[in-house]
């Protein structure tokens, strides 16, 4: 893969992660997730046939659709999360994760014989996903964190192993998480209305 294209993908992955972490509305988070799945598709097509890689894109976007079916602004509203200091903190944490991953990726690449750009972008997504999981108790953000983490892992694992069954099960897991997220948000809304 050309350096310019890799650079573009790294910038896009970071931008999508920042959008998910900093955004205050669910549209931004879903858009960020959608971009992440597009990046994952572009990465996986380097090592898998396009048809097989497309399963990831379709499953990911379908999961986004499922999440957005029951999403609403009150589901992600959090006073503490919205203040300026919290945003700066999240931005700084993202930056620290970014530096850590850039520092650790070359060593990890000596253990895992996969293309460096796969490892870098995959690790970035895993790191951002864990940040997202740890930052908030809001279900919408937790589900987007789980999906981000899984996407990162899929990018790393794709060069190691590729089969129709693997693609099918991973796509099924992504869809099921989207479905469970949707059910959870519906219950949250019912609870909120009561």
């Amino acid at each position, binding site marked *: 893969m050309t350096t310019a294209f890799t650079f573009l993908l790294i910038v896009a992955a970071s931008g999508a992660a920042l959008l998910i972490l900093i955004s205050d509305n669910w549209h931004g988070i879903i858009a960020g997730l959608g971009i992440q799945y597009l990046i994952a598709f572009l990465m996986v097509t380097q090592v898998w046939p396009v048809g097989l890689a497309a399963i990831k894109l379709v499953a990911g976007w379908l999961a986004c659709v499922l999440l957005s079916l029951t999403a609403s602004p009150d589901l992600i509203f959090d006073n503490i999360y919205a203040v300026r200091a919290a945003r700066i903190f999240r931005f700084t944490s993202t930056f620290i994760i970014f530096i850590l991953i850039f520092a650790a990726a070359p060593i990890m690449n000596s*253990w*895992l014989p996969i293309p460096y750009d796969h490892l870098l972008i995959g690790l970035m997504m895993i790191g951002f996903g864990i940040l997202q999981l740890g930052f908030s108790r809001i279900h919408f953000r937790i589900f987007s964190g*789980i999906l981000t*983490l899984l996407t990162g892992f899929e990018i790393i*694992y794709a060069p190691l192993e590729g089969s*129709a069954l693997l693609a099918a099960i991973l796509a099924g*897991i992504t869809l099921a*998480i989207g479905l469970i997220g949707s059910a959870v948000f519906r219950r949250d809304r019912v*609870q909120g209305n009561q």
Partner: protein
Amino acid sequence: MNAPILWILLPLLTSILLFFLRRWRIVINIIGTGLSLLLAILALVLPIDQAMQPGLVNLSITSEWNILGRVLTINQVDLPFIAFLYFMASVWFFLSWDSEKCFMFIPIGLGASAILISALAVNPFIYAALLIEVAVLGFVLMLLESSQPVSQGIIRFLSLQTMGMPFILLAGWFLASGEITPINQSQLILSVTLLVLGFAFWIGLFPLHTWMPMIAEKGEPIIVGFIFSVLPLAVLFFLMDFMNSYAWLRDYPLLYPVLRWLGGFMVLFSGIWSFFQKGLKGIFAYLAIALNGMALLSLGIKGLDGILILTFFLFPRFLSLLLFAFSLHILGKNEHDGQIEKLNGLAYRAPFSTVALLISILSITMIPFLPGFPLIQRLISDLINLSVLSLLMVLLGIILFMVKGFQIFLQAVQKDEEFIEIKENTQNRVLIGISIIMGLLTGIVPGTMNTIMIQTAEKFIQLLR
């Protein structure tokens, strides 16, 4: 006929059918319980890859089924485990007959059991990690149905189990590549670390155990009991499959001591945590963690002895969880929140539930004739020679559980002016009575009661050496 179709596809399709019938609780209960029991019995009597001649019909069951370029294989050695898993499922399904919060339990439970069996049948076996994650997603849906509002424990359960899967898959890749090319020491350490981390997430090792008390607190006891009894069992068998498959993982000198330390630590910390619990539901979760710890400990004893203890321990483990969950279920039906300080007079109003609770907690404390006694006594005598540290941790944990058990007993026999309001009906008494008798028989004649369980060890031929 094909074994994976019979024990995986058939229950999966039935679970889909039951999903549409979920409003008819009695119907799904009868079908779910009946089918699980039938599959368990068939796993005990049907031979695989051998021609069978029942009367005029020549029926033969083959072991393999190709799906999406991979193979699902159920061999003769897998059948005892399948029988045990479906037997457990049928008991849990049966007990859910009077629970109003279990609409999705049987449809999803049956499907999840089939998925867990496919996890142990898939080739290459590393795909099992993905299938266990699929089963976890089913468990989450099952818990969601009985929890309003959505408890934080369910979300944590999902997050932690999902985080465990990548570690296992990567560890599996490292170990599999070691079969092709020589692996160096740093790669070996890395793969073992990944493996331990992955299983720590899955089995609920401190501090990754927090989902267990949380779902026990908020969830329906029957559903939680089902998850606690089925999920760690599949995870343990998957771990044994790992150890059985890779010689250089088995021969890694630190593996067995690490398993013993982790197991001992799980028993110790669950003993400490349960000692400070004020409610029975919390103790239930920590008892499940301690039982998982005991299983890891027995796996940490190399050779035939460890595997024998582990397989013998599976039935008492199931009975402990069953008795505790059913007692909690009866308390819940009587609007009791399970707080220990409110158990005054329980022994007079609900003697069967009281005995069930006490047997459940005390069965891991080496009290003679209780279900776990012969195995824990054997485990401890092995640990004396292997690891003093693990032994001390286990003994301390056991003592703390014993103290907690006696505290519950004293509270239950207390005659206060305010007696607990609780009723045990005849069906409940019969069910608990049968479970107690089975438990006592397991403690008194363990060899006879565990003849089927011992056959599960035959799958792990390398570990028996």
